[in-house]
């Protein structure tokens, strides 16, 4: 598989001065066509900001201060807004968490699904609407031609998220970024939506970047995983390798925090002490050190870079132990 997207040494800062608050620090990952990469982390770990930066959607105050985002051989960061707009929604598309707020309540579903098709392919509204109906059918919305005339409030949460997927797939993108696509959904609907997303990306041979906080979802749907903490990737590996052989103390702590079948019911969970640091005020050295049970003096000297541990691309950012 050849690499479709390669993010290298990406750093993102928010604030007036360019170096004000570094919310993402030297993040590197890649994803190939047909592959699903999960970026997993807790609130404030920088996973969503990383995803938004790929699409040039950082908004006011946020900027890429270092690194490159290489998509199909082009550094997206160097393109002007018009060039990015041609790629966004066409070659790269995004699915957001909240299907309630990311659809326009005043426009019919048909209009919203057909819009990217019309803009990026230059076809007429009529042709675009016909294609929109086919897309709704592909995401298993019953009676799609009739439903094109409906408004978002007439759809359930699960159906709205399927509409979002239909919109994201409209131009057969090479890369789909899904930011917590099922967090707002019930678990039976979540399973339907994720299965659908996985099937369709496989059919189109697209790459999928799945942003999530749910280690269960990661295990069931991802090929590769990057674990983020306080703006940096602390460990990355194939999904199987990561779950069988987690190395970084934070990953170990996360895994031990999940209640469920593999832990004795009503036993004490091995929770990580304390809470994640404020990215505006990170401790010296490794940001996980203050919560880490293996930490020693060496951990506060510098922020550890990713290094290979074992084969198959398994890497972690920790100097503390092996």
């Amino acid at each position, binding site marked *: 598989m050849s690499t479709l997207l390669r993010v290298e040494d990406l750093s993102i800062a928010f604030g007036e001065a360019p170096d004000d608050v570094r919310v993402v620090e030297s993040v590197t990952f890649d994803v190939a066509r047909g592959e699903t990469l999960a970026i997993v982390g807790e609130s404030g770990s920088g996973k969503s900001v990383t995803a938004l930066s790929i699409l040039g959607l950082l908004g006011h105050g946020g900027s890429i201060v270092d690194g490159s985002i290489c998509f199909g051989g082009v550094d997206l960061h160097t393109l002007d807004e018009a060039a990015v707009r041609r790629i966004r929604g066409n070659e790269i598309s995004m699915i957001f968490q909240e299907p309630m707020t990311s659809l326009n309540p005043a426009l019919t579903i048909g209009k919203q699904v057909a819009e990217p098709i019309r803009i990026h392919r230059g076809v007429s509204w009529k042709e675009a609407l016909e294609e929109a109906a086919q897309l709704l059918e592909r995401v298993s919305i019953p009676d799609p031609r009739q439903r094109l005339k409906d408004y978002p409030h007439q759809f359930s949460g699960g159906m709205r998220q399927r509409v979002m997927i239909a919109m994201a797939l409209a131009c057969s993108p090479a890369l789909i970024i899904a930011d917590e696509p099922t967090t707002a959904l019930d678990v039976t609907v979540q399973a339907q939506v994720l299965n659908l997303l996985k099937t369709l990306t496989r059919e189109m041979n697209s790459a999928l970047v799945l942003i999530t906080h749910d280690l269960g979802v990661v295990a069931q749907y991802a090929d590769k995983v990057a674990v983020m903490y306080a703006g940096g990737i602390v460990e990355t590996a194939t999904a199987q390798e990561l779950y069988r052989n987690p190395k970084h103390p934070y990953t170990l702590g996360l895994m031990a925090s999940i209640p469920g079948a593999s832990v004795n019911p009503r036993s004490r969970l091995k*929770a990580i002490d304390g809470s994640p640091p404020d990215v505006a005020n990170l401790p010296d050295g490794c940001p996980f050190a203050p919560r880490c049970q293996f930490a020693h003096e060496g951990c506060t000297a510098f922020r550890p870079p990713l290094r290979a541990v074992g084969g198959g691309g398994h890497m972690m950012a920790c100097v503390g132990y092996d």
Partner: protein
Amino acid sequence: MTEIISNPNAVTPATETHPLLRVENLAVHFPIRAGPLATVSGHVKAVDGVSFDLHAGETLSIVGESGCGKTTCAMAIARLQTPTDGRISFAGQDITDLESRRLRPVRRRMQIVFQDPFSSLNPRMKVSDIVAEPLVVHGLAGEPDVLRRRVGDLLALVGLSPEMGRRYPHQFSGGQRQRISIARALALEPDLIICDEAVSALDVSIQAQILNLLMDLQQRLGLAYLFISHDLSVVRHISHKVAVMYLGRIVELADRDALFNDPQHPYTQALLAAAPVPDPDRASPYLPLKGEAPNARNPPSGCPFHPRCPHAISQCSTDVPALRQVGNRSIACPVVAPA
């Protein structure tokens, strides 16, 4: 610190005959109003015939998807929602129709921790005042010195330092705020704490801390929890007994191990199958579910689950199945548990 917090009521042993909380045929129906005169055109049966017992020192979880009635059920038990029908007995007393004055002593023994630690704490009050408020309201505050010590002990009990009482809620993280909510709930030394999605808004590493805290407190103080949640892995961890709700009704009620190791109701099976397991090598053995939960305004006839059920027979679309005791569980399904 424990002697102040220790709970004289908590040592009552769990017995079959005297549950701490008994809910019988509880129903909460909301009128649907339509038209210019807002005439009642029907009812949403948010909770419809729910029964269960909860013993002292025990955790009963109610699990289900959004709209299944689990929160309405909890609010009716706390009498924050008026029940339409049925009976709620708490510590042997029928509290279904108690007027608010006589409800007060009951509320002392029954407290709630809500889901959102950001909106359930008053941002203008200092944390020490938030924790002291239930004591003040119930006239148990005593001398300022005693109260201050008491609040300090409560904060220490949930793993916060007493000095933190001088701060305001916005100065705390989500997990710390949930600890404050728990300290407030503990102030009156309740026998029962209703946790309505109490850990759902928390990150997993923080969630684990709060679950540990809840279990520690249960062991030390003999608390009973009515634990409302949609998260099956959390429920599996913390519960003694589990009730699965679908569209206002309990479809299966069993001990934790019986329910999770051997789910019998088709909906329970589907719910467990849909929950992603944090293990890439484990595929789920049950059938995935089609469709979505029906609208409670217009529920299907018969068993509310029959349109999505892989095992439905003709009887399912006409008869509402009753919850029936079969072996080690109660179950409402004519196919799995025929009359």
